[in-house]
């Protein structure tokens, strides 16, 4: 006979406000099979859990239903408590009285009635529940880090420092990401390259880190502990073993007029190139799209001048399959394209630039060697207007969110500009200044109070080019309540932070969810900010949301800690919520095999004692099944059942409502 215990949680006031918890507990007492029913303010607390444990022992319970919050958060908590009291954890179920009831209703009697129904449903289910045992799967103690910016480098170094192997994949020819392009960093104004490049070198030389630059992830199979990832290594056309990085090739390359990605198109590069002098690895690649030899079949100068014969024009893309136990995604961000703003010149005014372009102008290694010269005629900019929130907080034409870092980098730009052009005028248009962070508000105050940046609260309505080539910036000063017009040599737009193009494609490959803008979603906004809903995949940096460098680094270290935690055991316990095929009734239509998103179902041949094939059926690989239930839904003969959610259990739930 079933002996079910019912425990109703008030969740402070979250449930108790709308649901009469005592009445629910009282009603549940009368359900067939229920031998104990109580309510308590915080069931997840230690005394609450103790109540459940005591009842399991004292009342010899065969099943427990906790009426509380969503099982997402506390099912593991309560199941652990049940296990500690000697009850198989899968004989404990949760009824969601919070998200499914109290939070979505107002009428107390009606909500209480519904809560009673929800409890009845789960009591009927738990009576049908079977004892399940966790599945153990081996863990491959190697991590894959996708993205070689500061977040990816940090995560890789921390995991490698913890003694585990890391494969660091970067799409471009060099590590470094956006941070390598920055001039100086807020709020301390330390040189970006000086703090980043040593870390790049450390990552490249670390014995536990395998570097795969100029490479992209093209396919992800498998599951936590056992991913199989296909990485496409793009053809470099330069043998990295032979190349010494002497640079003779790109000095002589005749295709010189290619806009440099690294310099945000303010400078040019050659077809055989390294993105920047401090690149890691410091070996060039050939850009096949622009190389004269590869497009027209004649030239070959780089091969002629190369002293080690490292150039190989017949190089091909290669696909490598790597086995990893965890994946850290650190694909970063891109700047929103401000050409959608017609009033700012729609991207056609040469001297209206974005933040990255200003960084390159201000950088000692940039195309102007650190002088603030306007792109159109190379003159020193005597007056610069900085416009914040370009695309950010504009639900109609841009993005509705705040890009978070622009207030700070605009203040930095204004300071750097004033340092470089002492007599120059720096005007900042802002909506409001958001400078939360250690030393951040002080930094903005410094820009305004001691560095002479003029801050104007208001929007710019129009930018146009005068006959003499200077720009006219028309806007409003909403504090003074008057229109303003400023003549500037250059305008710097703080474009919104958006995810990398292709972020959603990678997310689909990984099975990670993402928001409407393409930022990857964390598993829980407060308590699981570096995990994703896909077990074994973690997030670091601005691929999740706009972040500055310290936040990206902190999250990267957090992700590394999660990976090291996962790798601390040779085996992993998996929830035994897996599908099972009834081999007697399976007709091998293979619908489940085609439908399974995890490739977890395969053919199984049933043979007689002499080895003759009797029939072929579908068979679920327990290690790979994620318990999604898709196969159950497509099986026409009803020959697949999901442990933990069997047809009998689900029908018992439905029948309880009749």
């Amino acid at each position, binding site marked *: 006979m079933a002996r079910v215990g019912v425990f109703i949680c008030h969740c402070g006031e979250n449930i108790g406000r709308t649901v009469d918890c005592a009445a629910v507990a009282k009603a549940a007492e009368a359900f067939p099979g229920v031998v104990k029913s109580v309510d308590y303010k915080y069931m997840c607390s230690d005394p609450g859990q103790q109540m459940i444990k005591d009842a399991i022992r004292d009342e010899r319970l065969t099943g427990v239903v906790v009426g509380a919050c969503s099982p997402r958060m506390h099912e593991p908590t309560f199941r652990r408590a049940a296990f500690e009291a000697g009850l198989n954890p899968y004989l404990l179920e949760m009824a969601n009285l919070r998200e499914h009831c109290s939070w979505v209703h107002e009428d107390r009697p009606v909500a209480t009635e519904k809560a009673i129904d929800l409890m009845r449903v789960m009591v009927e289910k738990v009576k049908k529940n079977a004892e399940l045992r966790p599945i153990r799967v081996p863990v491959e103690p190697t991590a894959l880090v996708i993205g070689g910016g500061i977040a990816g480098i940090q995560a890789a170094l921390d995991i490698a420092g913890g003694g585990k192997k890391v494969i660091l994949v970067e799409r471009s020819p060099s590590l470094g990401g956006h941070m390598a392009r920055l001039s100086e960093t807020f709020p301390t104004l330390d040189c970006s390259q000086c703090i980043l490049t040593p870390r790049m070198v450390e990552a490249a030389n670390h014995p536990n880190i395998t570097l795969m630059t100029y490479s992209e992830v093209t396919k992800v199979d498998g599951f936590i502990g056992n991913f199989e990832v296909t990485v496409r290594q793009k053809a470099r056309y330069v043998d990295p073993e032979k190349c010494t990085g002497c640079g003779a090739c790109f000095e002589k390359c005749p295709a010189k007029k290619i806009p440099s990605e690294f310099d945000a198109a303010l400078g040019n590069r050659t077809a055989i190139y390294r993105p920047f002098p401090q690149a890691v690895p410091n070996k060039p690649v050939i850009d096949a799209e622009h190389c004269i030899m590869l497009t027209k079949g004649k030239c070959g100068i780089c091969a002629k001048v190369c002293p080690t014969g490292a150039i190989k024009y017949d190089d091909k893309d290669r696909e490598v399959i790597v086995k990893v136990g965890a994946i850290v995604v650190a694909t970063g961000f891109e700047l929103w394209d401000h050409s959608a703003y017609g009033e700012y010149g729609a991207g056609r005014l040469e001297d209206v630039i974005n933040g990255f372009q200003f960084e390159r102008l201000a950088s000692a290694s940039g195309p102007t060697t650190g002088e603030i010269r306007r792109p159109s005629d190379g003159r020193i900019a005597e007056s610069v207007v900085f416009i914040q929130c370009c695309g950010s907080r504009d639900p109609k034409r841009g993005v509705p969110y705040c890009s978070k870092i622009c207030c700070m980098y605009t203040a930095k730009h204004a300071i750097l500009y004033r340092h470089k052009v002492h007599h120059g005028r720096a005007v900042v248009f802002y909506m409001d200044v958001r400078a939360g962070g250690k030393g951040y508000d002080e930094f903005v105050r410094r820009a305004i109070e001691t560095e002479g940046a003029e801050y104007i609260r208001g929007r710019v309505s129009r930018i146009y080019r005068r006959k003499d080539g200077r720009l006219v910036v028309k806007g409003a000063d909403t504090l003074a309540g008057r229109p303003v017009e400023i003549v500037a040599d250059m305008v710097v737009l703080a474009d919104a932070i958006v995810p990398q193009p292709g972020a959603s494609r990678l997310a689909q490959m990984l099975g990670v969810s993402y928001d409407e803008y393409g930022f990857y979603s964390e598993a829980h906004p407060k308590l699981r900010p570096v995990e994703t809903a896909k077990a074994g995949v973690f997030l670091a940096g601005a691929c999740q949301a706009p972040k500055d460098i310290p936040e990206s680094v902190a999250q990267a270290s957090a992700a590394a800690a999660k990976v090291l935690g996962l790798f601390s055991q040779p085996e992993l316990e998996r929830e035994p919520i897996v599908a099972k095929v009834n081999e007697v009734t399976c*007709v091998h239509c*293979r*619908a489940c095999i*085609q*439908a399974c998103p995890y490739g977890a179902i395969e053919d199984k041949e049933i043979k007689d004692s002499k080895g003759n094939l009797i029939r072929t059926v579908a068979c679920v690989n327990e290690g790979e099944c994620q318990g999604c239930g898709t196969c159950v839904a497509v099986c026409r003969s009803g020959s697949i059942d999901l442990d933990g959610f069997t047809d009998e259990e689900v029908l018992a739930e439905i029948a309880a409502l009749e």
Partner: protein
Amino acid sequence: MDLAKLRQDAAALLADGRAGLVIGFRERAGACVPAFVTDADQADALVYDDTCIANLAAYLRKPEIRQRRPVALVARPHVMRSLILLKAEHQLQGDDVLVLAVGDDTYHGVLTLAEAERLLNETYADLATDAQVLAEIERLEQMSPEERARFWSEQFAKCTRCYACRAACPMCYCERCIVEKNVPQWISTAAAGHGNYAWNVIRAFHLAGRCIECGACEAACPQGIPLMLLNALLAREARDQFDARPGYDAEAEPVVGSWNKDDDEGFIR
């Protein structure tokens, strides 16, 4: 149609052992009924005309017939589609069957399954839904949901749960049908009310993207339930939304149960 040639081919297949059995039609009491011919000299009894609606592919799953593989089958284009689809769903090997192909008053001769697939795609690529059925679907779509529910309630109320529709359909090849699953029993087996509704709707859904609209189920129904309305409606949805053309490609994946990253997700929003 060259019936003599068909009989001659059937006899030859049996005589030289290329087929262990020929399934076709013969006349009995003024109607066409399935004929199972094992001797070459019985082949002269074979007939074929427009009333031969039964989909003979439905017999292929029976053990006593499987024993006699390869089996030759008199098949019109719809039936050939059934065979292609059975192969796509791994219920048939390419060399299990031979086709005595008939269509548009023509006898196309003895074809392998691969040849039948080619013939279908070349000559019978656009087998349209019956015009009367389409007209009736349009009439139903004009109804209010209540009227339509009443229409189907009345239709399903006639169902005696004889499962002739299931027996007539080559795609209903499950060894244990969902309606016979009793642990737990999802669908009431009593010939009334919800059970009838559930059975008829589930049968139609299990054929979504798979029904080749041969009409055998409706012809088999002793109660005159217009099953083709449901089948054709779901076939239309599968075709319009997922380009489903069941039975034209033996390598095709099923519409229900296959997915890809580029599938339209508009319906979730």
